């Protein structure tokens, strides 16, 4: 059974739903999938100061499924966690992938700008490898908050001078267009949707931080099921309480992401529905400042006594 136009149209239909696009776009998305599948958009995936959470999240993709992603949509030329090749063979793949000019570079993890020895691959610093890979790529897609903005490795008083990819590449004469998909981890639909749109060529409207508006255009709070509770000021005061979590520290009102509409893990749940505050994991400021706690019930009492 080979890949037919019909299969593409079927999968494209699922993606349309995923992306919130008009059905008119069906033919265009099918074409995009076909471009990916025939290997016209090879993907090189690099991991810097990462936890692999974004790679794990990609494997949670619903439609297309992870197996379909690997065998139909992505030409995954190099991925440290999935590549059969190891050692010299893996380095060979990496160098081959770098010769491919149409490559899309996906980056997971922060860049230890202040301590290149903090991330090494094949005796080369990740910093140098990243620069080589970004130059001449068709696009750079930063997945997860670490790659976008530094994330936890880039938090206040970190020891490695960790930054996001865009900060690192700034002033290094890299002309490649960059896209940022923050989140801790990134949602699989945000990666898949972005890659699909990318190969269509430039039809991916983004904001000033390079975030695709399709996923990051609205505030979590605006579509939150607790919005009505917020309006009547019915607030939870302790974790596990009923009510809107705003007073506990929920960052839904300042976080741009579509979690409240999309849900996580195939829509079975998401943070706020499960009673957890939104920790703002998709915000550029996520985990950056030590005086900005995620839960605020310990606050007040601490402010006077800490120095």
């Amino acid at each position, binding site marked *: *059974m*080979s890949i037919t136009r019909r299969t593409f149209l079927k999968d494209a239909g699922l993606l349309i739903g995923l992306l919130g696009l008009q059905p008119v776009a069906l033919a265009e998305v099918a074409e995009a999938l076909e471009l990916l599948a*025939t*290997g016209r958009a090879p993907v090189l995936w690099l*991991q810097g100061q990462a*936890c*692999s*959470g974004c790679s*794990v999240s990609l*494997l949670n993709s619903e439609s297309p499924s*992870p*197996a379909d992603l690997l*065998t139909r949509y992505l*030409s995954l030329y190099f991925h440290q*966690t999935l590549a*059969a090749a*190891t*050692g010299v063979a*893996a*380095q060979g*793949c990496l160098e*081959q*992938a770098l010769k491919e000019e149409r490559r899309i570079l996906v980056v997971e993890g*922060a860049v230890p700008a202040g*301590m290149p*020895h*903090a*991330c090494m*691959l*094949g*005796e080369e610093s990740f910093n140098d490898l990243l620069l080589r890979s970004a130059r001449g790529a068709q696009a750079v897609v930063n997945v997860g908050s670490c790659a976008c903005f530094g994330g*936890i*490795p880039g*938090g*206040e*008083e*970190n020891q*490695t001078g*960790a930054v996001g990819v865009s900060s690192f590449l700034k002033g290094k004469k890299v002309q490649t267009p960059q896209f940022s998909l923050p989140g801790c981890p990134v949602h699989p639909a945000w990666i898949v949707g972005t890659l699909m749109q990318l190969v269509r060529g430039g039809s991916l409207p983004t904001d000033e931080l390079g975030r695709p508006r399709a996923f990051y255009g609205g505030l979590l709070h605006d579509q939150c099921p607790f919005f009505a509770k917020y309006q009547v000021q019915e607030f939870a005061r302790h*974790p*596990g309480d009923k009510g809107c979590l705003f007073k506990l520290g929920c960052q839904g009102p300042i976080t741009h992401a579509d979690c409240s509409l999309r849900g*996580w*893990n195939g829509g*079975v*749940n*998401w943070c706020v*529905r*499960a*009673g*957890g*505050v939104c*920790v703002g994991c998709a915000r550029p400021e996520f985990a950056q400042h030590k005086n900005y*706690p*995620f*839960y605020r*019930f*310990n606050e007040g*009492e*601490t402010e006077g006594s*800490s120095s």
Partner: protein
Amino acid sequence: MTRMVIDPITRIEGHLRIDTENQGGEIVDAWSRGEMFRGFEAVLTGRDPFDAPVITQRICGVCPVSHGIASCEALENAFAIEIPENARLQRNLILGANFIASHLTHFYQLSALDFIRIESLLDYRGSNSTLNHLKGWAEQEISSRKILPVAPFLPHLEGDYPKDQKWNIQALEHYLQSLEIRKESHKMAALFGGKMPHTATLVAGGVTSSVQADVVENFRTRLLRVRQFVDDVYLPDVQRAAELFPAYRRMGAGVKSYLSFGVFDENGHDFLPSGFLNEGQLHSLDLSLIREGTRYSRYRDGAPKHPSVGVTEPDPEKEGGYSWLKAPRYGGSACEVGPLARLLIAAHHNVFPLTQQLRRLGWKEAELNSVMGRHLARALETAWIARRMEEWLDRLRGGEATVSSYGPSLSGQGEGLIEAPRGALGHWIHVEKGRIRRYQCIVPSTWNFSPAGEKGDKGPVETALIGTSVARESQGLEAARVVRSFDPCIACAIH
């Protein structure tokens, strides 16, 4: 004597390099080198203590739940917070689901390609539509002018892959099926955890999600599907791999000192108990015996310290420092941690019927200390935990509290000890004036992938590599098989 460098070791979590010295077709010395440092402990210092479960889960995208729970337990220990029964059960269920996802991913996505001849796919003549799709894809790739056809499945290192066509094909099919099953187990974790990876509901004092009957049954349905795969597919696949690679039922023998902190709290008793098993003798844990050294690590030197007073001061170009991992020791011993350690310790406590299970499967207990022994222990444990999870589900009580109430907490010292999928995990916290003054973690892969200790004594994986037979033209396949049997998570190990 020839030097072999395997860098990077792929199909693991994180950045690992292995150097070996080989002589007469055998590895005679080995160095395990962790290559990525982030410095979580410094990022945690000075924060509100209740941030810790959110931050520390992000140490690892593969086993976030164990970090989240260890961190909650450290806070509860520091501030004398009790947790309700519903919270204990929900934590066990979220963690159990994380164990299943982690173990399945480890065998199929990370390890199996070492034991499959992928090219067999091109000879497939059957009628399975998934496999025919895969074959069609591979043929199309090979006939295309792509630089790397059939990536990420090819190329792979040359080696002794099996000729058994049935195994090769079936294992590939199961590789694809397991992707769906591991996703199911993430959905289970998300039902009580909010999302995976990196859950939202683990807080000091409990779990924020309430107990709803529909969610419980949603979880149960998925669990049944997962259990079926574990019992009918995963366990038989590990058995078949062990039959096809009998040499690996001996190779990769480790240090024979095993450590477990115990996990799955059932009202004060761990379903999988703690202990230190040394040369076949079981001892109860004495945590004061733990020390972490840095002699061969890329940190400033100092006497080995207990984690409650540990420090993390990077020295990236330190002479003689060959890894970003510290070197933990228990009473001076390097210890193997993980599913094998847990099952051996549970068997010594008479709470796991190891002898009976091994007899049924045709294994000798001595064979467990090997590459295939570790794979088998992981599979047996997955089945054992998955079965128990139904009982935890039954004990959940709708309408009852899932979080205890407590006031602001400004000072204290605590430890959170648990088992992650890869082994013993400890978090140590010191809080002063409502801020974290010190935070230290010793993570399972820190134990297993430890560099040499103060006296030059090798870490467990280094020890397991020594004596491994390697083909003359080897580029590291045999060594990689040994390394992967420990399920490395290097982001965790260094953090």
